[in-house]
């Protein structure tokens, strides 16, 4: 019984931690962008202010119940997914799902968003979702090959086992040292999954008026903001768990997470945007090829 209670406490606590770290990741993203563009960038607490501002706005426009429910699903799906990602000292329900489950659970927020946007009855939004789903079809293929390779290598889909094996053996047994090719493919897929430039096809302000966000304002946009911070957190923590030995303690854990995330963000702000078919072609060619080679190395 005590164990169940502890798990429940962790399940409650883990999303809160994820939210706070996620907001700081958003801050880092903005800071990096600013420095690359020779600006100063926002102050430390800006992401918090933004969330509060958006939720507290006077004008809140709803396009119907599914619009509301979509935003709830987008945030709630990530809140649930965070309890599957072990962090130092907390495992949550990671042993009850594993990475395949995590990969599919993180589709729920996207589905929620897609439903919410669909209800808005704005073709710009629908085109955005069509593009977002297409890019998911693109990056999920290398991503799932990477997951296969890692799971096969460690003989488990349980993230706790995967992290424990790496931590027991030290840096030499980290995923990145044993499976460098897969690690590169994984980083590529992670970058595409964040939807940042050059893969920013579904926001595309100049073409489709920010796509999914076109009818979003106030707490709806706030929900998307929260979703984004969760997304940054999930992607980087998963990568750290698969390839960088997870977190031995909170300090190394956070260092690794922020470092991993900094790579795609720096690339994102240095490059312009692709077209949808270019993204599909690029992602289906390079990371898929790398990932398959990586899997071949793992399996031989």
């Amino acid at each position, binding site marked *: 019984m005590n164990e169940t209670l502890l798990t429940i406490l962790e*399940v409650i606590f883990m999303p809160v931690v994820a939210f706070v770290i996620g907001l700081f990741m958003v801050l880092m993203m903005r800071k990096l962008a600013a420095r690359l563009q020779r600006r100063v960038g926002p102050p430390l607490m800006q992401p918090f202010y933004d969330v509060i501002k958006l*939720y*507290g*706005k*006077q*004008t*809140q*426009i*709803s*396009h*119907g119940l599914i619009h509301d429910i979509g935003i*709830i*699903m*987008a*945030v*709630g799906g990530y*809140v*649930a997914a965070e309890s599957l990602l072990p962090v130092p000292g907390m495992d949550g*329900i990671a*042993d*009850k*799902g*594993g990475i*395949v489950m995590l990969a*599919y*659970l993180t589709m*729920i927020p996207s*589905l929620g968003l897609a*439903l919410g946007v*669909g*209800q808005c*009855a*704005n*073709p*710009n939004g*629908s085109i955005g*979702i*069509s*593009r977002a*789903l*297409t890019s998911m*079809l693109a990056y*999920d*293929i290398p991503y*799932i*090959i990477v997951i296969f390779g890692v*799971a*096969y290598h460690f003989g*488990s889909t*349980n993230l706790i086992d995967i992290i424990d094996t790496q931590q027991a053996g030290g840096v030499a047994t980290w995923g990145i040292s044993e499976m460098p090719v897969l690690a590169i493919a994984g980083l590529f897929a992670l970058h595409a999954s964040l939807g940042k430039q050059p893969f920013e096809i579904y926001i595309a302000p100049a073409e489709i*008026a920010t796509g999914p966000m076109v*009818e979003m304002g106030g*707490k709806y946009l706030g*929900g998307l903001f929260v979703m984004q911070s969760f997304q940054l957190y999930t992607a980087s923590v998963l990568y750290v768990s698969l390839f960088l030995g997870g977190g031995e303690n909170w300090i190394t854990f956070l260092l690794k997470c922020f470092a991993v995330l900094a790579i795609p963000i720096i690339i994102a702000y240095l490059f312009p945007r692709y*077209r*949808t*078919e270019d993204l599909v*072609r690029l992602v289906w060619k390079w990371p898929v090829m790398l990932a*398959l080679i990586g*899997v071949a190395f793992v399996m031989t």
Partner: protein
Amino acid sequence: MNFLDGLLILSLLSVIVTGFAQKLRSAGWLSSVLLGLQCLLLMGMAGLAYGSPAVSSSFSVSVLGQPLHWQFNALSWFFALITLASALASSVYAAGAWGEDYRLQGGNPGLLQFALNLNVFAMLLLLASGDLLSLFVGWELVSWASLLMMVLAGGAAGRFGLRYIVYATAGAMAVMTGLVMIFQLTGSFQFADFAAIAPSLSNAQVVTFTLLFVFGFGVKMGLLPFHLWQADAYAETPGPGAAFLGAISSRMGLFAMLILVIQLIGLGRLINIEVPYSFFSLRDVLMWVAAFTIIFPTFTAMRQNDARLLLAWHGIGQGGYMLMGLLMVNPLGSAGGLMHVFNYASYQAVLFLVVTAVIYRTRTADLNQLGGLVTRMPLSFLMMLICIIGLAGIPPMNGFVSKWLIYRSLIVEGMPLLFVASVVGTLGTILSVYKLIHNTFLGQLRLEHEQIREVPWSMMIPMLILSAVVFITGFLPGIVLDWVASAQAALGIPVLEHTLGGVESPSGNLDMIWICSVLFGGFAVGALVFYSGNKSRRVHQLDNYAGGHFLTADDRYHYSNNFYAGLMHHIGHWYRGTFQWLESSLGSAISLLSAATQMLFNSFHPALFLLLAATLSLLFFAG
């Protein structure tokens, strides 16, 4: 007289009664009651799914000295449960308001109910087959019964039905050839006799039998490249009939294949046979057939503009998962494959019924003529949402569990490319089903649909119950896994160790009870956060951003056609219609051959041919 006898007799009686009562106004309800009674009798045999020994029917018939008999084991029970449940749901759906409407449209709902009962009887007979001969009899009955259902609508349906029966006859020929060859080897049609000699068969014989049976039964399943008949034929079937056919009819092919290939020949033999000059075993070849059956039809579905066709194409694709799972040695895979039969039937039936409900209200299934119906038919939307989540294989619905089992076993067995293929299929499904729900229920509501209402309860209740099954068996997969494990035992393959919430294994667990609880907890938090923000104001759908333009009631502001334009820029030219081309060139070749033969016959003196034929046959019989 036991439950099985009762079930078969009642089923036959139902066929006769519904056959005579076609003109009755209450024929639909009568048929529903009869199907309900059959469900009760099936429940009487529920012990089968929890380890009771097989039940044999007390009837047996002898044909040319060969006894035919019927029995039920856990596998038959599992398939029969799906058959009867989907038939009952379709029957109730068709009995009420839909049937009335169908009559007004010029259809005969009584005939539909009769066809439904006939199909159920044929399927039960097939599922109960106790030897190869009764299997073949059941198989043929199933083929012709489903033809009756397919051609009910007339018009184009007749053409598609004809196409089906050409395929089905070719398949039946293959099956019969296989059975005759078995008879020559064993001198009997008993399963046990074939199983006894199976280990001593030469590799060439195993390959021959496997190919014959996989082709023969695979035609019904829509395995590539024999899949072309299915989508059109199912889509043209009247709604509830399509739901029933789509849910279970094709799986009869899987059932028969399971008996002959997995149970009697055995996977071990297939794995040991190497394809010359390759790394593949015969089993791998079949798994790749399954993988292509997943991918091609799924991506064909994505391009459909008719909701019924979209679903029917997915039905073909999902069959690939079942076969892929069942071709795996470890119990995770085979359990996943079997469970997928159940899961798939539950959501596919609802999806067809929802689409039928949309047609009932709007008179169209054209995905470019709909939109925004969620505000008018919210419950139907919810049913479709639940079931597309199931079809796409996303938690928390049951479709995820069976696909998870298949993914896990592909990882365990170390098959990366097949794993990728199955995931590609899932991703394609997600894209495709989003298009379905978006174009039907989301986006802009058309002016002409502003007055429509939700469908009546007689149509809603079957959908509600089946969607509840989709959710509950996702939350508590152990319920179905119990039945699946017994079916595995009946097939003589390794049995999956499971819990109520999923699977516990040293290399990775699945506990859907926890996952679903946390997920809904997460939604609750999401709702809390959402409603803690400032209160929102509802606006009209035309009160939208349109680049400075003001929308009016005659503006169509909806994105539906060529939904994945960006993707199609890249993969569009991969759709070459190769299978269509193959089919039509085969057809042309046959007509050319027959024309040539006819010409030869007409240009010479026909009497000479007669003389030749007569001499040859005399020689044959005399010699």
